[in-house]
């Protein structure tokens, strides 16, 4: 028993209450996670032993790959020639005029191949899959963008692909279901729970329990057991690195504020991370405020959650006092998730990033505003960031700059938004 750490040392990792009582965060570091996958007290590896061999294989392979110039060259090649990077940093003149404050720029991830930032991660993890010699990939998807990006890479790299998607999301994101099937992926409808992203993640993990030997699970966000939160953040960091270089080029310095939507948090982590040590750049993460603060009517894990464990990681979770996951709601399928990446939990506690919420109605309004003001139809997820950014820009000076991470395009949402508008519901949202 001498090898065990003392109870005091480990106490924060034994109870949600103790973690909040005992943890006194310092300034945020970008030198995270540690070797065990912790961002401050968050993160770690909470999965059945069955998955440990695969998780460790992935860690080892990623460590080799990121030091391998050939891997970096391959990654750069596919990001440039296949995904169409770099994506523009576009000055939104009419949106800036409408808001009447800071200059608003859009980081155009909607212009990346497949229409969202998700491709940055799937190219990277697809290349890791090839390096590990695995022939099949699986993925969970909410809005379907990660599913499409996974199916796309599977097609390009000749991998077999299965995507798990909640049946409620299959209904509201039917265009993406068609795209995945066209790309050769099998889409499995998940009928458990609320039939949304959390349930799809459960099913993908269950598949992986029995298929680890020949299958790689391409997790779509900065969630899941270590090393996924780190790997996904690293692959998405291309967004922030480009934004930094483009800001220098366009206005000679880094932006004053960056706004990104947060479901699991991958697009936000990707654009925030390269700016973590530039503390004069304010970072705003926008969660789904849904239809109100009553339990089950929103998906704001950071604003309303508590430290807990879900899908292999310790982070802020919406759950009851006994650790049972709570019901969540968002009009946006990609934000409809009761957890959030552990690095966001760390940034929240260290106050490096600030988090806010935008309601379904505000997001739906911003969806229309960006379309009319700029000729750009945003994904409903990204519309949350747009709604908050308009508010935030108003409080800023005209010589300041604000960047919105426009994480995806909204074609996939047009049918659902049209349905919601026709239903004339005073509180638009998913019906029940």
């Amino acid at each position, binding site marked *: 028993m001498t090898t065990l750490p003392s109870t005091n040392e480990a106490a924060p990792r034994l109870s949600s209450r103790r973690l909040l009582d005992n943890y006194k965060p310092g300034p945020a570091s970008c030198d995270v996670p540690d070797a065990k996958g912790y961002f401050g007290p968050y993160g770690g590896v909470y999965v059945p032993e069955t998955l*440990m061999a695969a998780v460790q294989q992935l860690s080892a392979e990623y460590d080799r790959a990121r030091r391998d110039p050939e891997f970096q060259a391959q990654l750069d090649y596919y990001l440039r020639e296949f995904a169409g990077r770099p994506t523009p940093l576009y000055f939104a003149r009419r949106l800036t005029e409408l808001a009447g404050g800071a200059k608003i720029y859009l980081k155009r991830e909607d212009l990346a191949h497949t229409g969202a930032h998700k491709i940055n991660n799937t190219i990277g993890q697809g290349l890791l899959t090839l390096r590990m010699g695995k022939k099949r990939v699986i993925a969970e998807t909410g809005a379907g963008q990660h599913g499409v990006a996974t199916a796309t890479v599977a097609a390009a790299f000749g991998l077999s692909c299965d995507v798990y998607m909640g049946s409620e999301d299959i209904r509201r994101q039917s265009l993406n279901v068609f795209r995945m099937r066209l790309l050769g992926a099998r889409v499995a409808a998940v009928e458990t729970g609320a039939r949304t992203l959390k349930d799809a993640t459960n099913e993908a993990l269950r598949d992986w329990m029995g298929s680890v030997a020949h299958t790689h699970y391409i997790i779509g966000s900065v969630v899941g057991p270590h090393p996924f939160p780190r790997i996904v953040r690293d692959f998405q960091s291309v967004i922030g690195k480009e934004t930094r270089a483009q800001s220098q080029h366009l206005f000679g310095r880094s932006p004053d504020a960056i706004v990104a939507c947060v479901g699991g948090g991958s697009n936000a982590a990707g654009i925030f991370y390269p700016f973590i040590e530039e503390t004069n750049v304010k970072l705003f993460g926008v969660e789904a405020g849904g239809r109100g603060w009553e339990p089950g009517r929103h998906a704001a894990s950071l604003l309303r959650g508590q430290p807990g464990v879900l899908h292999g990681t310790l982070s802020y979770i919406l*759950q009851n006092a006994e650790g049972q996951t709570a019901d969540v709601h968002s009009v946006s399928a990609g934000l409809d998730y009761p957890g959030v990446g552990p690095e966001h939990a760390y940034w929240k506690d260290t106050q490096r990033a600030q988090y806010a919420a935008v309601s379904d109605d505000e997001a739906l309004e911003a969806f229309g505003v960006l379309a009319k003001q700029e000729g750009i139809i945003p994904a409903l997820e990204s519309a949350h960031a747009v709604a908050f950014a308009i508010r935030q820009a108003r409080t800023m000076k005209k010589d300041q700059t604000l960047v919105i991470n426009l994480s995806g395009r909204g074609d996939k949402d047009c049918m659902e938004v049209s349905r919601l508008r026709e239903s004339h519901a005073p509180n638009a949202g998913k019906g029940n």
Partner: protein
Amino acid sequence: MSQRLAECFQNARREKRTLFCPFLTAGYPRMEFLPRMLLALQESGAGCVEMGFPFSDPIADGPVIQESYRVALERGATVEKIIGAVRHARESGLRIPLLAMASFSILFRYGTEDFAEACAYAGVDGLILPDLPLEEAPPVVRTIGIRGLAASLLIAPGTDPARRARIAELCTGFVYYLSVSGITGERSALPPDIVSNLAQLRKLTDRPVCVGFGISQPRQVRSLRGLADGVIVGSAIIRRLTEESARPEPDYAQAVREFSSALAVELRKNEPGNGQSQYTR
């Protein structure tokens, strides 16, 4: 580890018996049946019982146990009610060891110390920690150990030998060997490497080894006699309870008693040729 659990496995090993270890979902089909079902399992010849704390997102479980967890939670299962039911069972004469399987999501949010204290008060002997790998388990094993609870951790078919030894070293209860790589649920056949894996594991550690996941049929149970210290059957029993609930006058205690007896007897057959392991040469 808990005295009751330690003695149970020591006696079984001395008498060269393999224990039958059935699984129940706490609160399925209803909490009020739990004490009687636990007693019925004891009467049926079960060596110890494994009891699952229902969880909203059990990633290691197949459809049958998932559904039982969902139903139990929907019908109001809470830690407090489960603790009360177990305490009642102990007061009513439950003597065999009882291990609780609980996701770390529950322990962490409830508070590992408080959860362990509640379990110890109820008469639970140990915890099976299905989602705590070697890397995260030590502080939890220590914390529940202080409260008198043994810890059982999982070893999978894909776990390498060095890691198996380290996990077994950390187990203060039995070592939980997963017969298959995958989720819980009935399988028509068990993998052939189960024999060599169990033999290797028992060379590696003196701790008791129980084998579970995918085991449901009398033939499969019989084939594991002598290879492990205990054989765990879960989904098949839960499925039997689900079938029982469709009957006009369900008797859950009787249903688990019959089901468990039929499997427990497979581990007590000593006649050559009858109870002979299909793997024994």
